[in-house]
């Protein structure tokens, strides 16, 4: 586990935001051999890069023309997607009021200029380790214990994040809701232990079938599952739904000595969330809860139509 954490830390991506090319160069020379380092020579470019690339830690200068370090920090901490990225302020300021303000705004630490490479490496390493440990603990609370895929809480978080991402990019977000057909009958016939085997098998097929980096699979509850398909238009959603339905139908479920098969009914939909405003930062303030609820209900209704229409089929929202 510790070894995995260390490997994860070594793969970390660090974003350095500083208006001085000399400081950027120095920090990149210190960190580049160890981490994937991205550089921004202004606060705005830094914010754009943080949204574009998954970032594990940010080194932030305070005194910059345009958007100051404090403003960047405030925007990061007000952004649900970016708020948990640890920010280390790198500053030449010896004013303790700046340090207090930075920490109050949510900075994780301070490094004083002129920078000392050993201090930079050690402080960055400590905060990346802490973040990796926190992520590990968080991940335990987001996984369904039986199937190993995302749980309901994970779905709620991911759905909000993917909805905002889709609103920003203008790309459609696809969603599938699956229900195992006649699951009660399956349990009655094969027993609950084999019922669990059935749930695990379906989850494994889902993970294998929806396997792009932008695909997410969840157990919604009981015998219901959800797949989120990032950047997928309706035709792609239909194709994945049909492939998934077929793959599940074709996969054997081992119940002791017996082999059996299950089918699923699927509701499918795609949406491009409505953007509000033209400034990309406006998306942060939008509460998409009502729109998410409406979309989820529509896909759920499609699932009920699939069940009512004879099961083992896909219906569109």
């Amino acid at each position: 586990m510790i070894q995995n954490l260390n490997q994860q830390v070594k793969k970390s991506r660090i974003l350095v935001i500083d208006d001085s090319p000399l400081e950027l160069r120095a920090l990149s020379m210190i960190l580049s051999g160890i981490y994937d380092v991205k550089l921004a020579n202004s606060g705005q470019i830094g914010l754009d890069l943080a949204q574009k690339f998954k970032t594990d830690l940010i080194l932030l200068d305070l005194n910059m023309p345009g958007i100051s370090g404090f403003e960047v920090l405030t925007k990061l901490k007000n952004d649900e997607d970016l708020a948990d990225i640890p920010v280390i302020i790198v500053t030449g300021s010896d004013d303790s009021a700046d340090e207090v303000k930075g920490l109050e705004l949510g900075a994780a630490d301070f490094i004083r200029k002129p920078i000392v490479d050993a201090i930079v490496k050690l402080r960055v390493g400590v905060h990346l380790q802490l973040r990796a440990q926190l992520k590990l603990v968080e991940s335990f609370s987001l996984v369904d214990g039986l199937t190993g895929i995302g749980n309901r809480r994970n779905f709620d978080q991911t759905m909000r994040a993917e909805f905002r991402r889709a609103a920003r990019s203008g790309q459609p977000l696809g969603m599938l809701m699956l229900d195992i057909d006649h699951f009660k009958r399956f349990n009655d016939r094969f027993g609950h232990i084999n019922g669990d085997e059935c749930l695990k098998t379906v989850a494994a097929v889902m993970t294998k079938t929806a396997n792009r980096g932008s695909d997410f699979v969840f157990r919604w509850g009981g015998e219901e599952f959800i797949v989120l398909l990032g950047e997928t238009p309706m035709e792609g959603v239909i194709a994945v739904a049909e492939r998934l339905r077929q793959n599940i139908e074709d996969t054997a479920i081992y119940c002791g000595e017996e082999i059996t098969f299950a089918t699923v009914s699927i509701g499918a939909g795609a949406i491009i969330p409505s953007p509000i405003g033209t400034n990309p930062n406006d998306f942060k303030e939008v509460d998409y809860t009502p729109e998410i609820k409406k979309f989820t209900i529509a896909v759920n209704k499609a699932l009920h139509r699939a069940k009512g229409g004879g099961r083992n089929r896909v219906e569109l929202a």
Partner: protein
Amino acid sequence: MGGDDFVGKLRIKFAKEQGDVFVRIQNALKAGDIKGAFLLVHTLKGAAGLIGEPMLVKAAIAAEHPLRHGEMPGLIVMENLQYTLDDVVSAIYIPQRQEVTEWDKAAAAELFDGLQTMLAESSAECFMILDDLEKIPETEELVALIEKCDFAAALDELLELRTKLEL
């Protein structure tokens, strides 16, 4: 901090980047842009510390203090900053770029492929190929933009060069 090579590279970059900063500070002050002058002096202070020049750090601190409070620095403070900066910059040897006579077009194309991705991703890796980049003709502007960390402009320049050099 770091080894001799590391500091040596930073000193050259310091001379290129900060060599004319006193003129820029004066221009800002003449225009009444105290905040702009403060940012320039503040950056100079950090850069001087980075290359291990404590006298210049002190001179910058003396100028930074009144500017932070919206006041003009005194004449002696400014003169001291100018002379100390001149002493530091004049002691740094900036190697001249060699004229490119022969170059490998296939290798250059491969280098440009990699660089294009690095610039699009604002990746610090692009600093590692600057020496190789200088062996390709007409890359002075591209190298300068990368050194300024202006990756968007560097990417535009790279795409123009690809067309021009048929790479």
